[in-house]
């Protein structure tokens, strides 16, 4: 791929944040700005989680192997928007009321599961560097990073449990996630080591860029 492409994708990933910033600045966030910020950062967390999870299937299906070079970036952006979402909650929603937050996490199941999904992303973000891949070894690193499956499931459930009546949008996220996870399950359960599969196994599943 062309060299400048990665920075362009990086900047594109910041567009949702830039839009929020611009709307906040120009007073276009509407009647309930904090709600808009909460929903936007939550939506983009889920979208980036799904984009990250889509990389492997798309690579396999299209043979565009270079896509692996974007997976870490998308994953880190999922963590980035999740962090903003979490900060919105503790700052704008709860105003650092620790007691109330602990109460929420213990008592409200949609908060519990959302919080769990966020916490699961932390070790993934921390071990996303080349150094950590080498330190843990590919197999163990990969096993650890399968936590993203649970984080994404938790994210969709979090959304599902918080809507009042219209489950349309969480259902869409859930359907996409089911396809992405289903692809993997089919891969594990399917015929062992077909020619294609054997080939794909030889490809690096994580990016360690040389020099």
């Amino acid at each position: 791929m062309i060299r400048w492409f990665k920075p362009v994708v990086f900047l594109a990933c910041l567009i949702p944040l830039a839009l929020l910033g611009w709307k906040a600045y120009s007073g276009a966030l509407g009647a309930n700005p904090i709600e808009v910020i909460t929903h936007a950062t939550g939506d983009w967390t889920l979208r980036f989680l799904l984009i990250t999870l889509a990389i492997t299937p798309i690579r396999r299906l299209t043979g565009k192997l270079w896509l692996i070079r974007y997976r870490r970036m998308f994953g880190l952006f999922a963590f980035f928007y999740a962090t903003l979402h979490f900060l919105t909650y503790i700052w704008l929603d709860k105003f650092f009321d620790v007691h109330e937050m602990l109460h929420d996490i213990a008592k409200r199941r949609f908060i519990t599961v959302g919080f769990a999904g966020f916490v699961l992303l932390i070790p993934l973000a921390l071990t996303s560097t080349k150094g950590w891949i080498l330190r843990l070894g590919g197999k163990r690193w990969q096993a650890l990073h399968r936590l993203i499956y649970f984080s994404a499931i938790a994210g969709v459930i979090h959304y599902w449990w918080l809507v009042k009546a219209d489950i349309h949008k969480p259902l869409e996220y859930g359907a996409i996630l089911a396809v992405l996870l289903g692809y993997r399950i089919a891969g594990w359960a399917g015929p062992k080591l077909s020619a294609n599969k054997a080939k794909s196994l030889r490809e690096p599943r994580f990016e360690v860029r040389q020099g």
Partner: protein
Amino acid sequence: MMIKKPADIQSSEITPKSLYLNRRKFLAGAAAAGAAAIAGLSLGELVSPSTIVQADAKIEGIKKSSFSTNETITPFKDVTNYNNYYEFSTDKYEPAGLAKNFKTRPWTVTIDGAVEKKQVLDVDTIIKMAAPEERIYRHRCVEGWSIVVPWVGFSLSELINKAKPTSKAKFVEFTTIEDPKQMPGQRGRVLDWPYVEGLRMDEAMHPLALLCFGMYGDALPNQDGAPLRIVVPWKYGFKSGKAIVRIRFADSQPQTTWAEMSPREYGFYANVNPNVDHPRWSQAKERRLGEFLKRPTLMFNGYDQVASLYTGMDLKKNF
């Protein structure tokens, strides 16, 4: 660790915009639009449709009411662009646009059930039954946000007295129009349409319960429940049905829409109560639109005068 609790701040200190400033601008706009209409320009060329709905429908002779709060009124643009009106959309920002061409005339309201005589009344007949009053009420949504709205209407009891319910009438049921052609939200089955709400007879007869047809001095905008709605300020907003086409007096408690959809979460009474949480979120605080910090939610939304209606009732059970 020291965590400073936000002190109670008067809303007037936080919200710089006063409604009346807002309203004057709005009225000036309406006047300008009127002048332009005479000059042969179309209204649509002058004003954005989402902010001025039926700008010519000013209600005359509105009396003030001692029930009004002196809290800062929420800006008109927020109350008309942030609406929970699932008949149009579950997105709060969409009803303003989707309800733009909603037809509110001709409009009739059927009054039936336990009444001396079943009637079908024209909405304009109902509106003239009593003198319009401005009631500036707090309005608390079950989702945890609140607004202060200058509604226009009169006590629901005025209509009920004229409807002459029989001694069998223990409850009143309000039905919202069902018209999927005009209301895109009704084409899906998010809720069991038509929307039905209800009150116990003594609640409905309480002078605070409002039969509402206007706000901010003008006719109700479509997205806020035109042409006729109920406003029950001590209950969560969903109890206040919009676009009412039927008022039925019943001897038993009506099956209401949200209580049917999720009985664990939404009760028939739905009184604003900071001590009874929604199963999924706390009701102890609320965000007043336009304010940064949440404020404590008040019992009965601050309308203590209704407390006697519930003497001896366990409000944790009858939520």
